[in-house]
């Protein structure tokens, strides 16, 4: 892109170059392919100038300058490498090695460590100063992250990342001089602190001081040069965060956020505890071969052909025996759009299923009913609008549990934009600097939102309505402090010019509609955002809920309204079924087939056929964003275990055996069909 800003002419290592004014000498050098080593500097963080590894000679001055914090000047002459500079860098590195225990062979980070690489680069093969270090503590209280202060070089990257990227502000320097340590909150353990385990500190840590407790030690898996990296996205919650997967030997070693991500994402490319750690957790035994229920009631491994034949026969028989409502198809909203389109067509057009639904269908129905009551078709707001809002009201939702990056953005906006945040309901992430906290009792949600709606929209203008609102508030039996908080929230909502509401369908219980409706109504009254968009973000329970809902997978009618099904196909994507309502729905069927990556433990007594399918990480597919407006492509990162077939192969085999022609002959056809339906 051409800019009108006049470039600055500078000389680096005898080479005259033109650079943008205001950038640092380090940036100027890197743009021109000149290497300057760094340690405390990270491209995604603010510059600090603490480590002095990046020192250069500026205009022949006897005092070396840290290039990461020295801006370019017109005509400046920079030397990035000479004997004096190298000697200075090497001395600093020696001091770092002498100050703490950097014993590379027994470090989890060996092979992927910036300190180690720098020592090789600057040829530090021995120390000219005595090693003075003491033993420092190690904190392994968290299930996700460990801190080993013995490996810490106090570069402060983690402190800056915690503040600038995650917004948690849990990390800071404690004490000073040789006693300086990175501390959490009031020097607490990782577990006792308010740390949110996003792991951004670990990603930016140049050494093995902060490492993850999930992965195999790199030392065992070879150096980073032997790994493959795949850039893809995380499909866990609908925010579609870009993620970089490091793979070796068909094993994911680590998942990193794309921290240098462009400005289109206000989250600055971070990942959360789910996307970085939890996705690597296995939640049961993998299913690698189909299993059939024997005459004696036990499940036994069987060949693919036999399992598919039996499934197709039983499903066809069920359709023949009872027209219409015989079959139910239930899919997890964690599947890609492609898998969902194929599943929907196979179940609906192919087998004439009476009910096709998703595991989060109840949420969909609440949203659907609320939307039907609106005066015009409206869109949901995008989570990317959070930094622009002047007031954020969170009702009943817990973004840290469902969409953790949303909670990170809220934390950051409280500090960076002084945005007022009001929280109604319990939260895992307490947002310590939120303007309001109001507890929400289970039965009170609808009444409370109704009262808020009345009070916030008619504040001081309509006496009758004010009296009505006051009556509602009285019914809530709030304590004196809570009532004051309630009135203050109502006043803030009524005064806000650019508010955003964040909620979940059904607030607390899935059956609770009217509170959700009142909130939709309240956000409608606060005016629309550009593009017929409601000021409302609905947090959804699964990674591709929006896609599944848009594709019509979730049924508008309550399941079972067309009669009880006798056979069911359950299409899981890596979850274990624990919802008692769902288990209830699945009992008493004549035939249950479960397609799942894991052995479904809770269904082991009920299922007649188990068919293995790949995990999300083992398949390609597109996903739809939380607000339903964007589509992202998720790449296959590793191969599925041997013997497991792709979802589309399983579904086409079933289609073939039941005599259904879906109209897709290849994987590409399915992709095109899904793309067309998503409006891409």
């Amino acid at each position, binding site marked *: 892109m051409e800019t009108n800003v006049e470039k600055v002419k500078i000389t680096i290592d005898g080479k005259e170059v033109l650079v943008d004014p205001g950038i640092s000498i380090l940036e100027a050098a890197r743009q021109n392919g000149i290497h300057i080593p760094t340690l405390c500097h990270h491209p995604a963080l603010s510059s600090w100038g603490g480590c002095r590894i990046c020192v250069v000679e500026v205009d022949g001055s006897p005092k070396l300058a840290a290039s990461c914090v020295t801006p370019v000047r017109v005509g400046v002459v920079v030397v990035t490498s000479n004997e004096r500079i190298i000697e200075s860098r090497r001395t600093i590195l020696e001091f770092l090695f002498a100050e703490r225990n950097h014993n590379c062979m027994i470090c989890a980070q060996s092979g992927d460590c910036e300190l180690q690489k720098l020592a090789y680069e600057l040829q530090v093969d021995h120390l000219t100063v005595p090693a003075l270090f003491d033993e420092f503590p190690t904190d392994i209280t968290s299930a996700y992250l460990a801190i080993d202060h013995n490996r810490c070089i106090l570069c402060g990257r983690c402190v800056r990342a915690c503040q600038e990227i995650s917004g948690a*502000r*849990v*990390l*800071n*320097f*404690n*004490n*000073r001089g040789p006693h300086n340590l990175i*501390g*959490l*909150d*009031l*020097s607490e353990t990782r577990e006792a602190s*308010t740390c949110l385990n996003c792991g951004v500190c670990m990603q930016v840590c140049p050494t093995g001081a902060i490492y993850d407790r999930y992965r195999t030690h790199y030392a065992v898996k070879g150096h980073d040069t032997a790994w493959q990296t795949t850039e893809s996205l995380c499909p866990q919650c609908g925010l579609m965060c870009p993620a970089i997967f490091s793979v070796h030997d068909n094993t994911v070693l680590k998942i990193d956020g794309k921290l240098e991500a462009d400005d289109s994402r206000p989250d600055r490319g971070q990942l959360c505890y789910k996307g970085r750690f939890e996705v690597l957790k296995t939640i049961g035994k993998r299913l690698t071969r189909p299993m059939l229920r024997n005459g004696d009631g036990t499940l036994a491994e069987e060949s693919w052909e036999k399992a598919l034949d039996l499934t197709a026969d039983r499903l066809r028989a069920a359709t023949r025996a009872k027209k219409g409502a015989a079959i139910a198809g239930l899919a997890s909203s964690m599947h890609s759009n492609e898998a969902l389109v194929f599943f929907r067509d196979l179940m609906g057009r192919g087998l004439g299923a009476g009910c096709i639904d998703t595991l989060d269908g109840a949420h969909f129905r609440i949203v659907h009913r609320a939307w039907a009551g609106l005066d015009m078709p409206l869109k949901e707001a995008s989570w990317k609008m959070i930094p622009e809002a002047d007031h954020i009201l969170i009702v009943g939702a817990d973004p840290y549990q469902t969409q953790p990056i949303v909670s990170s953005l809220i934390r950051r906006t409280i500090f960076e934009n002084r945005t007022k945040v009001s929280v109604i309901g319990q939260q895992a992430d307490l947002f*310590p*600097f939120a303007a309001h906290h109001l507890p929400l009792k289970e039965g009170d949600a609808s009444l409370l939102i109704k009262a808020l709606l009345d009070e916030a929209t008619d504040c001081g203008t309509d006496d009758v309505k004010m009296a009505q609102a006051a009556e509602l508030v009285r019914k809530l039996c709030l304590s004196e402090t809570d009532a004051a908080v309630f009135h203050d929230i109502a006043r803030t909502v009524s005064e806000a010019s650019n508010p955003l509401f964040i909620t979940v369908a059904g607030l607390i219980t899935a059956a609770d509609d009217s509170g959700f409706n009142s909130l939709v109504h309240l956000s409608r009254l606060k005016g629309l955002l550009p593009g017929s968009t409601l000021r409302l973000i609905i947090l959804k329970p699964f990674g591709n809920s929006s896609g599944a809902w848009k594709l019509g997978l979730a049924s508008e009618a309550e399941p079972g309204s067309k009669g009880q099904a006798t056979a069911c196909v359950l299409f899981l994507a890596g979850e274990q079924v624990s919802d008692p309502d769902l288990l209830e729905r699945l009992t008493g069927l004549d035939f249950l087939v479960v397609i799942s990556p894991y052995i479904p433990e809770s269904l082991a007594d009920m299922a007649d056929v188990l068919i293995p399918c790949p995990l999300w990480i083992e398949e390609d597919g597109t996903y739809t964003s939380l607000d339903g407006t964007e589509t992202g492509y998720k790449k296959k990162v590793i191969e599925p275990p041997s013997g497991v077939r792709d979802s589309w192969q399983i579904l086409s085999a079933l289609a073939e055996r039941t005599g259904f022609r879906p109209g897709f002959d290849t994987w590409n056809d399915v992709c095109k069909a899904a793309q067309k339906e998503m409006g891409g």
Partner: protein
Amino acid sequence: MEEQLSAIFARFRGTAGEVIPLLQKTQEELGFLPEEAMRRIGDFAGVPFSKVYGVATFYTMFRFTPVGKYHVCVCRGTACHVRGADQILEHVERELGISENETTGDGEFSLETVACIGCCALAPCITVNSDVHGRLTSKKASQVLKKARGAALKEEEDGK
């Protein structure tokens, strides 16, 4: 503590720039900085706990354990160092049975070292609360502590 903190906060506006004065006033009032007080200061000033704690631990003037009734500071400034501050410190430690930055079990004495108390002409010197005792020898130091202990005992007896 709640009331004392409220009284302190009433004199401030609650901005991030007030953290150090807030910590100072709190310590003046409570004698040290309890964890809860630091949390309250963070909430009041809109500053994360980690930052409050980082600031508090950076400055040696802030304490996180209660001081004794008699707070002994042994000067280790240049002049005192030359005149044998190390021996004085060792002696006081032995006499009180505690190390640097500790408080005796009965809560009577606490011990701390400081860089210079500005009485170099009197080196080596210690302070007990705000009283300076100079030109010390081990013997004189014992007398100073004994006097303080005697005063403490007398107070106790008078109290009875």
